[in-house]
């Protein structure tokens, strides 16, 4: 194979499952040292494409192409045996979920050694040395010790690095990475992307699959945007990001909240059914106003929560957290996984007892009173979760869920609240015919809209949103964020908004708390925290965030 020959040449690739076409007629090439990013939302066919290139499209799949050259070989009629000799040796594959990709019962060193043992000879000690070398190359500290650890003993970022080490163990010419950083925290994701960038500069060809344009922007040379099984736009990174031609690409770019001022619409207006006119009694924003002083609707003082690890050891989940949520405003809580955001939210919701400290709701005691005393006041506090589906009873229809919320639990018969249910549905932009559907048959965005409708049913003053858009595609995320913005302006709601995503927090919040390891390391107005971060950790978080697309 000569150096100028492409590592990957795909022409008119079609993949179908039982007559349903999921990828149709896509073509692309990847040359040595080049990185192509395949970007699309869930269901666009990008992962199936990646898997087809490795003969892993799965049972029931039907793959056809006029050309499918992988590492210089025509792979169209490959046997399982030929695929196996290709994988690992010529093509390295990096998956999103490193935890499930690594065998929990075997050491990381053994996992990487597998690839070496199956494809090349070399004595045991030579291979062991190579394993350590690889672990060092992917930036793991103390590689000797890491090699003897099991995947459960490593953090998410370390696992992803170990997986990358096993993918590059045989110096493959081509690396295919399917959402390699999606499951990782921002700072760790940034370092893994850097590592992939280094590999590319070392001469590997790379096919990078992601749902997020911003993530791939730092590494990719060219970008192909996929929608509904087709490539709708392709070009160099600059072309696609700076002068997108296809409306879908433009919508994707517009949907990214990074760098968009507060209350800017992220989604095209047409996708948004116009809500009914504002009702005057709901427009009062300053419920807490007294003699010109604005009182917080939700406030926390000195919150502490420890979880016992053993008889003598405690895990400090939340330590001395204070905040005030003002009426009609949004308080953003940002931090990486394990920073205590959700624990704080659960204490604010009165679902978790505080070890010390108090939460006050609308000026009255909240965390210190028994649940029976809270129950009557719960209607003023709603919650929206990351995974709305699991928060619904799977046996109930959308209208039954709303009827239950509207009647304060008295009935699930939708007839009693027909009018209010249709008002709620239109308020959150759901079509009336969704009423009879069960949550499991709704799309991710529709489920979150239903969850918001349920939370709004008792006419709350405060909504606690725990990663409400983290599981959603960018364009759906944009719609849900727009909806939350709009509801806040119309109903005068206050949000405690939790997210790991800095761009989302910046777009949504008036004030921000930055949390790390259970503590608030920085707080202030959104502008001051983002433009002049005082704490080192905030600065490192901001540096790790993918650049706002408009600045590339």
């Amino acid at each position, binding site marked *: 194979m000569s150096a100028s020959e492409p590592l990957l040449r795909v022409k008119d690739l079609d993949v179908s499952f039982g007559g349903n076409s999921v990828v149709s007629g896509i073509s692309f090439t990847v040359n040595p040292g080049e990185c192509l990013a395949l970007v699309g939302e869930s269901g666009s066919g990008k992962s199936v494409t990646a898997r087809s290139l490795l003969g892993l499209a799965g049972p029931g799949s039907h793959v056809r192409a006029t050309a499918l050259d992988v590492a210089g070989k025509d792979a169209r009629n490959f046997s399982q045996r030929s695929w196996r000799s290709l994988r690992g040796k010529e093509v390295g594959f990096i998956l999103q979920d490193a935890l499930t990709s690594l065998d929990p019962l075997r050491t990381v060193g053994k996992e990487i050694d597998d690839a070496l043992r199956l494809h090349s000879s070399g004595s045991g000690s030579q291979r062991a040395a190579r394993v350590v070398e690889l672990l060092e190359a992917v930036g793991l500290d103390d590689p000797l010790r890491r090699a003897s650890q099991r995947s459960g003993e490593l953090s998410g970022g370390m696992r992803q690095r170990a997986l990358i080490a096993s993918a590059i163990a045989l110096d493959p010419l081509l690396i295919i990475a399917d959402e390699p950083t999606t499951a990782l925290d921002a700072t760790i994701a940034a370092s893994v992307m850097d590592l992939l960038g280094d590999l590319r500069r070392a001469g590997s060809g790379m096919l990078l699959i992601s749902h997020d344009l911003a993530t791939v922007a730092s590494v990719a040379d060219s970008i192909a945007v996929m929608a509904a099984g087709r490539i709708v736009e392709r070009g160099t990174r600059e072309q696609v990001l700076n002068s997108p031609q296809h409306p879908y690409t433009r919508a994707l770019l517009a949907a990214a909240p990074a760098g968009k001022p507060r209350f800017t619409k992220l989604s095209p207006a047409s996708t948004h059914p116009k809500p009914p006119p504002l009702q005057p009694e709901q427009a009062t924003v300053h419920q807490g106003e007294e003699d010109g002083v604005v009182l917080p609707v939700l406030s926390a003082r000195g919150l502490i929560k420890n979880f016992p690890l053993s008889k003598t050891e405690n895990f400090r989940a939340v330590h001395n957290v204070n905040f005030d949520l003002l009426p009609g405003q949004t308080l953003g809580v940002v931090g990486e996984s394990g920073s205590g955001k959700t624990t704080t939210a659960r204490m604010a*919701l009165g*679902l978790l007892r505080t070890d010390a400290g108090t939460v006050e709701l609308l000026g009255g005691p909240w965390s210190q009173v028994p*649940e029976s005393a*809270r*129950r*009557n*006041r*719960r*209607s003023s*506090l*709603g*919650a929206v*979760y990351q*995974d709305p589906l*699991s*928060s*619904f*009873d*799977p*046996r109930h229809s959308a209208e039954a869920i709303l009827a*239950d*919320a509207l009647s*304060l*639990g008295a009935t*699930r018969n939708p007839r009693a609240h027909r009018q209010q249910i249709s008002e709620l549905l239109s308020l959150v932009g759901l079509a009336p015919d969704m009423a009879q559907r069960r949550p499991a048959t709704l799309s991710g965005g529709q489920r979150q809209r239903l969850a918001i409708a*349920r939370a709004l049913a*008792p006419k709350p003053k405060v909504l606690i949103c725990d990663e409400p858009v983290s599981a959603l595609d960018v364009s759906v995320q944009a719609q849900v964020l727009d909806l939350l913005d709009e509801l806040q302006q119309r109903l005068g709601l206050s949000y405690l908004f939790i997210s790991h995503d800095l761009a989302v927090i910046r777009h949504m919040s008036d004030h921000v708390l930055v949390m790390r390891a259970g503590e608030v390391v920085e707080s202030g107005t959104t502008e001051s925290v983002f433009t002049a971060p005082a704490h080192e950790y905030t600065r490192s978080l901001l540096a790790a965030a993918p650049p706002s697309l408009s600045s590339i």
Partner: protein
Amino acid sequence: MSTHLAKLPRLLAAALLLFFLLAAIAPNLLAPVDPLAIDPAAAFSAPGPGHLLGTDESGRDIYSRIIHGARSSLLIGAAATAIGLGLALVLGTLAGFGGRWLDFGVGRILEVLFALPGLLLALVFIALAGPGVTTTVIAVGLTWAPGYARMIRAQIIALRSSAMVEAATVLGRRRSRILLVHILPNALAPLAVLATLGLGQAILWAASLSFLGLGSPPPAPEWGTMLSAGRTYLSLAWWMTFFPGLAIVLVAAAATVLSRSMKAGGSR
């Protein structure tokens, strides 16, 4: 087509269960011959045109006895499963939702019940309460309760900390209402599958107890009793044991196959 082939066991099982259900509801439709009619002249007839599945030591028609025995076998199976589930529901809910001390107490009781082999437990109960159909049903139900109870408890504990229950709490629902509306129905759904599986097992158990002479008294057409009666003549008239045994196996197997396909369908 492979999909049709895959459906075949399910269809067969459903047809078999329907057949025995019909036998239980209207036995005379399928077997007009009186199951208790004695005909000494025709004793020990081999399966043939006159007696489809042969006759027993008194010349009673085996086919007719199996068909007429379906009712008591299915009833025993259903009733025992219902008793087992009912008892398990109470114990499981107490353990799963009643707080730490109740969980501890119920847990120890279940462990004691688990420690005894099921059949022994049933025998002890029958020894205390005296033999008979009702006692058999309760005894079999009793032996099944601990297993179901453990599963209900595990389901409830898993659901108790689910986002669904959290959401209901945030909406201000009472614990009792959350238990009734959200937890119990969702905890019981997977158990419905298990109960089908248990139905076949319970029939098997009831037959075992009847075989030991602790269930229905002899002249009544009951599968286990028939097995037991035929055992004496096994070398002379194999059909006396074989066909009632086959009926038990078929019902138990059909119930198992159906429950498995329900489970596969449910976990889609």
